[in-house]
């Protein structure tokens, strides 16, 4: 069967997809439905299995077990060149011996389309590279090559477009610009985009739905807002943005709230925001939700949580000031304060209260490393 352009797109479904490389499990019994027409991101650190998942969808890697469906078609055993799926590769993988025009026309020609000129020219318009047809890929900048790679895939109107860290090789400014452009193109053409990245900001900017992957499994799936506001695992809380996590015990309930004990201090948390099943929880709050109040000021606000500490570092970054505050039990928490102009700026050594709305508190299962998912080095590529 040959793929037909513009065929009614269906959802992309992965069912119990597993891939082993020898003894290492890259993708571990992954099930996922990606709705047609959505911009979906697979987000995770290097080696989490996101690229392997993408390659299995493209047909470049054979799953050890599990099935892949496009709409109602089982495409698991279909060769890459027979799947209505196209990929924008990490380093673009443009054909160096062909010019830009022939690169873009490659897919159409392989499917027997004779008159490709009008379509290629239209694609060059879409990616705003009119007149670049006769150039060689080596004569283009990184951003231009990226757009050619996109055009080369898009011209085939695949049912699903796969993007494998497509912006990884670009500098920050260009990356921002391309993020918006990709989003615009996706909205215009209405295809399903599956985007693999380790850059959480990139995933959040572009995707409708994000699946956070770790160790070959999906940790959590949801909209960017949902994932950020309601992380359900330690990994997600730490990998997506930053979180202050502290080990706590549930000691009672009060209406819709849970009462917590943290090293002898009392905190409350909405019962609905607790993901833990036992009495031991990691209790968390995002650093920008916390207010830093100089010691001695009145902090007796109803419905608020308070912890006390000593500021050990304050770094001014322009838009915000980032404080590191050491708790009495030695743990460092982070506070990010917006520099709106009327706040008291604290310096290292100052005693302070950390105050936040109890409803911003979330509870996570207290198994495993409390620091899981914190990136210690800036990783590029997978």
């Amino acid at each position: 069967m040959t793929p037909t352009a513009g065929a009614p797109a269906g959802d992309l479904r992965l069912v119990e997809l597993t891939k082993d490389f020898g003894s290492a499990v890259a993708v571990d019994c992954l099930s996922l439905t990606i709705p047609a027409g959505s911009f979906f991101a697979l987000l995770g650190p290097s080696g989490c299995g996101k690229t392997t998942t993408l390659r299995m969808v493209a047909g470049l890697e054979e799953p050890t077990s599990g099935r892949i469906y496009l709409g109602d078609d089982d495409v698991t055993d279909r060769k890459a060149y027979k799947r209505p799926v196209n990929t924008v590769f990490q380093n673009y993988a443009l054909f160096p011996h062909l010019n830009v025009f022939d690169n873009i026309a490659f897919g159409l020609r392989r499917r027997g389309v004779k008159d490709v000129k009008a379509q290629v020219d239209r694609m060059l318009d879409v990616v705003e590279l009119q007149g670049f047809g006769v150039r060689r890929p080596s004569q283009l900048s990184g951003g231009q090559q990226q757009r050619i790679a996109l055009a080369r895939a898009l011209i085939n109107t695949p049912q699903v477009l796969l993007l494998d860290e497509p912006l990884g090789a670009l500098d920050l400014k260009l990356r921002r610009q391309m993020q918006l452009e990709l989003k615009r193109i996706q909205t215009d053409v209405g295809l399903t985009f599956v985007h693999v990245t380790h850059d959480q900001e990139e995933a959040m900017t572009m995707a409708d739905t994000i699946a956070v992957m770790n160790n070959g499994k999906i940790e959590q799936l949801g909209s960017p807002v949902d994932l950020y506001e309601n992380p359900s695992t330690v990994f997600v809380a730490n990998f997506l943005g930053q979180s202050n996590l502290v080990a706590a015990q549930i000691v009672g309930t009060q209406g819709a709230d849970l009462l917590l004990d943290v090293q002898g201090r009392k905190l409350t948390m909405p019962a609905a925001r607790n993901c833990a099943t036992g009495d031991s929880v990691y209790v968390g709050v995002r650093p920008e939700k916390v207010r830093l109040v100089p010691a001695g000021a009145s902090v007796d606000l109803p419905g608020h949580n308070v912890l006390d500490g000593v500021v050990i570092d304050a770094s001014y970054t322009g838009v915000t000031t980032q404080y590191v505050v050491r708790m009495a039990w030695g743990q460092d928490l982070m506070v990010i304060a917006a520099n709106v102009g009327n706040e008291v700026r604290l310096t290292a050594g100052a005693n302070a209260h950390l105050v936040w709305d109890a409803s911003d508190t979330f509870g996570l299962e207290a198994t495993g490393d409390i620091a899981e998912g914190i990136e210690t080095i800036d990783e590029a590529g997978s």
Partner: protein
Amino acid sequence: MELPKGRARRGSRSLPYVLLSPGMLWLVIFFLVPMATLAALSLQTGDYEQGFTLTWNWHIYSEMWTRYGHHFIRSFSYAFVATVAALVIAYPLAYAIAFKAGRWKNLLLVLVIAPFFTSFLVRTLAWQAILADNGWVTSTLRSLHFPMQDGRLLNTSFAVICGLTYNFLPFMVLPLYASLERIDPRVVEAASDLYARPITAFRRVTFPLSLPGVVAGTLLTFIPAAGDYVNATFLGSPQDQMVGNVVDKQFLVSNDYPIASALSMTMLVAILILVSLYIRRAGTEEIV
């Protein structure tokens, strides 16, 4: 990294010439001088006992062509067939080493180079023994009614071409391997992702990208094969003599230095013309 400006400037003036000079000197003494001597020798008359004098005897070139023209045609035909055969054998081999060999890659490369550990001459003599009339190869093929010239392998043009193919095969394999190995596998994957069947991906992507290796390999095979005389000496009959054999005989047996020099110069110019036409045709500068 930036070098101190003054220093970089001073260095860049004389340094390239200093670095070039040993090589240039070597080439002048051992290449240019003998070449000029050879060219001059071809235009001299006289004999070995009395000595030769320069008489600008251009006539020798037409005389040489009348006597030995067919040797040139034979040399180039043999070299051409051997080059094509080597390409056909070497391409799948280099492809397998580059893409399919996995951890055997280095071992296979050593095996390709292994023949160089024995001398060219010894290996060709070994083939003489293998292809001998009373050897088991010939008798087996004979019993299978394999079509052979006069029922033998040794002293046939077939044996000479086989010898040339065998001897220059590594020179074909190595450049092919080098250019295939350099191909980014993701580019081939991209072709497959863009609806190219494996055979189409090879024809449209892998092969065009390996062309620099094909050009280098065919040149490295064709040029020495055309000038070779060892294979024709040991594996061929007097009817299979190549230009190299004639040069050898004129220099060392007949002592007719002018005609031997004229043969050498003609061979040199002919190869130069053929190679430059080929390179222009192949358009290697187009390939990155």
